[in-house]
């Protein structure tokens, strides 16, 4: 049985290489990246052999804990595609324990498992300092691999099973995003630490705590043995063994449960009336605008944009602040940057609809109406953002004369960017996360084209706003009439580019409707 599962997993791995060349390049990059990390870790761990025991312990325990935590949490937050889902084997009538064991062993085949195995073996090199430490490190290597692989199995199945409902998937995606965002101050705080002076202190503080958790105990046990604390070493090793055992029983129980339980049913929410549709004109453009707004409000994929738009400029500002740029100058950044991200957010809007776009093709929706409707949510957010945000920014900057430039540059970026997105989403769609998938799920077959289109959409919007930006820069340097000129040029050019983009994008949409549908069907 175990042999069959192993064979199946190997077959699945081999089949990865039978895909398109672009995907293959991505997979190879992933392989090189994963194994490269492992090799760096191996070099580090072997190097630690020649370092004092307390320092080596702090480093291995801290990094080891992070690695184990990653194995436990990453599948939960990002929803890994589980090809060996236990439920796939429910109809074969194999005893639960054998399925659980077979799948657990099969999980040992794969890049992450290989990487952790290499690291686990390498930490033996760090701790061959006395007999007990060597034995604990050797046994620990096995425990590390078992803990990581089983942990990933359990959390993958939980993600696939308990978080299977649409709402649960979307919520976990958002939670993951918020966690990442809230970690960024921590990262900033860590960069603020004077590592040369306090580094060791911080590190040993973290590792002292982590060493008593199941995440770090296994890494810490040989270190304690090397320092001569036999009792502590055995206690920590026991924690690690118990945790690995608990993971096995959790996995066994989860498999048993999954085999006999159907998909979780979602509770459905009821809405009344037509919502946004009731408050827009009953035209094609109006209906598409209402549909877009409804999606921005209801669809988790748009939520990630909504969360990222204010956050991304802030992270940028924080980074510049850490680098020593004065606060008043930083006040000029957020509003134009948010306008840029807002207009950029819809550059792949057609792909977000996936094959539902057939309705527009079959109804012969005019390309102009389609393009206009899709930019309405961005305008609803963007125009107030500019009108309210610009005065606030100008007052923080401390010079009201920058206000016209501020509005000019921001509107130029927003409007021209929306025009650009209107063209790009009709002409160069690339695979996006499908409706209902987790916002972090990797779209199948996203290749280098996606990255190229994203960058072009981003930087071309900046280039289109260069006239307004240049005039605003002159305004900052010389004052006078330059800011007013920046406002005029920015708004006029923005409107011109928007009209051009909508018209051109609309013509492309009219011409390529069936091709757009065929594109979405390929993904």
């Amino acid at each position, binding site marked *: 049985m175990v042999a069959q599962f192993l064979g199946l997993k190997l077959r699945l791995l081999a089949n990865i290489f039978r895909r398109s060349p672009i995907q293959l390049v991505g997979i190879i990059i992933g392989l090189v990246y994963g194994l490269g990390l492992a090799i760096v870790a191996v070099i580090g761990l072997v190097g630690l052999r020649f370092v004092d025991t307390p320092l080596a312990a702090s480093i291995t325990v801290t990094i080891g804990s992070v690695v184990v935590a990653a194995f436990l949490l990453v599948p939960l937050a990002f929803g890994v595609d589980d090809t060996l889902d236990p439920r796939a084997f429910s109809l074969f009538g194999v005893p639960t324990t054998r399925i659980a064991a077979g799948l657990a062993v099969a999980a040992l085949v794969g890049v992450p498992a290989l990487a952790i195995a290499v690291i686990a073996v390498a930490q033996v090199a760090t701790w061959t300092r006395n007999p007990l430490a060597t034995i604990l490190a050797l046994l620990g290597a096995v425990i590390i691999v078992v803990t990581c692989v089983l942990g990933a199995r359990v959390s993958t199945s939980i993600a696939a099973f308990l978080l299977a409902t649409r709402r649960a998937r979307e919520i976990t995606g958002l939670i993951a995003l918020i966690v990442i965002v809230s970690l960024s101050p921590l990262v900033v705080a860590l960069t603020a630490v004077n590592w040369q002076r306090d580094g060791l202190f911080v590190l040993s503080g973290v590792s002292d705590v982590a060493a008593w958790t199941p995440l770090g105990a296994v890494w810490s046990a040989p270190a304690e043995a090397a320092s001569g604390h036999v009792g502590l070493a055995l206690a920590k090793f026991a924690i690690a063994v118990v945790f690995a055992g608990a993971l096995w029983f959790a996995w066994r129980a989860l498999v048993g449960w999954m085999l006999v339980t159907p998909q979780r049913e979602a509770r459905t929410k009821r809405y009344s009336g037509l919502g946004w549709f009731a408050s827009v004109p009953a035209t094609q453009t109006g209906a598409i605008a209402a549909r877009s707004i409804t999606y921005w409000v209801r669809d988790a994929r748009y939520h990630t944009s909504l969360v990222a738009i204010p956050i991304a400029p802030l992270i940028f500002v924080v980074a510049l602040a850490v680098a020593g740029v004065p606060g008043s100058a930083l006040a000029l950044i957020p509003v134009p940057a948010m306008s840029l991200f807002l207009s950029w957010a819809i550059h792949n809007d057609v792909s977000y609809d996936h094959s539902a776009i057939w309705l527009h093709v079959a109804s012969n929706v005019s390309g102009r109406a389609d393009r206009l409707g899709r930019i309405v949510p961005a305008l609803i957010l963007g125009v107030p953002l500019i009108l309210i945000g610009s005065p606030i920014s100008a007052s923080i900057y401390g010079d009201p004369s920058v206000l016209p430039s501020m509005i000019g540059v921001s509107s130029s970026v927003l409007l021209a960017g929306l025009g650009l997105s209107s063209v790009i989403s009709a002409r160069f769609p690339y695979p996006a996360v499908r409706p209902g998938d987790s916002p972090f799920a990797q779209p199948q077959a996203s290749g280098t084209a996606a990255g190229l289109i994203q960058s072009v959409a981003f930087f071309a919007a900046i280039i289109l706003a260069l006239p307004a930006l240049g005039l605003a820069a002159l305004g900052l340097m010389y004052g006078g009439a330059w800011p007013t000129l920046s406002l005029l040029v920015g708004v006029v050019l923005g409107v011109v580019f928007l009209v051009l983009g909508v018209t051109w994008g609309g013509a492309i949409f009219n011409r390529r409707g069936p091709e757009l549908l065929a594109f979405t*069907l390929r993904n």
Partner: protein
Amino acid sequence: MAPPNAQAAGAGTPEGTPASALISPPRRPISLPRLPVNLPRFFTSVPRMLVKKRTAEAPRTEAAVAPATVGGSARENADPGIVLRVTDLVKRFGSTVAVDQVSLSVPAGTIFGIVGPNGAGKTTTLSMVTGLLRPDGGTVAVHGADVWSDPVVAKRNMGVLPDRLRLFDRLTGGQLLYYSGILRGLDAATVRARSHDLAVAFGLEDALGRLVADYSAGMTKKIALASAMIHSPRLLVLDEPFESVDPVSAANVTEILQRYVAAGGTVVLSSHSMDLIQRICDLVAIVVSGRVLAAGTMEDVRGAGSLEERFVELAGGRKTAEGMEWLHSFSD
């Protein structure tokens, strides 16, 4: 197996080209409720019209039906009786020919069924008919307007239910109906009134406030059907309209379609259910490997047996279950 009566004989196309479908009955007098039982009486009037242009050439397949040149009129596409005329439609995917010169003529006031085994090109054909997939060759005319050169008129006259395409499922059922209606150019009041009627007719009153994403497969099919009808098109093109729909709802849908046809509407549908096609369709085409192997009135195509028997025969016959004796000795 000879055609049972004269109306199905004859093929005017040269050797090698597939037979095209042709049946052009006059508009059926409206009678509510129309039952399939009426059909034989009705079609007795057809042969006299068709005999006119029949050529002497032998049909390529026995069930082939003469091409559509009723009355020798030069204005083929403008023929008021023909709502959908598909001519020599071709679609290739790489080296495979998915649809190979399919020709169909669908007269007004009929339900036209397309049956075929899995992968026969039914969905591909219907996608090209509805303007969702660009054909490699051939023309599609809806009520005289070419779908690919005059899409505005052609698409206005068509209601579409595609198979296996997504809906805007983050909208509630009510919003999706409204959206479809407005995109089709209706005014708000009309859409609201029709949404209500459609919801009642399809038994979706309680579901209009829920997201389509949370619907069951059958309910999704029904809301999509309702969306296809909301602009009262002349022609409904429905791909697998009865798939995963429960029997009660299927009976409802059938009745809705039959009343629509009785009022002069036209339905083209595909299905795997031979019984259902045989029961509700006036005309039928059997498509295998992208070619029309038989087309005509239900009576002509099925001959003496059932449609299912005729279909299995044309689709290559059933594989006999020899060598499967082990299946009859059960393992424990």
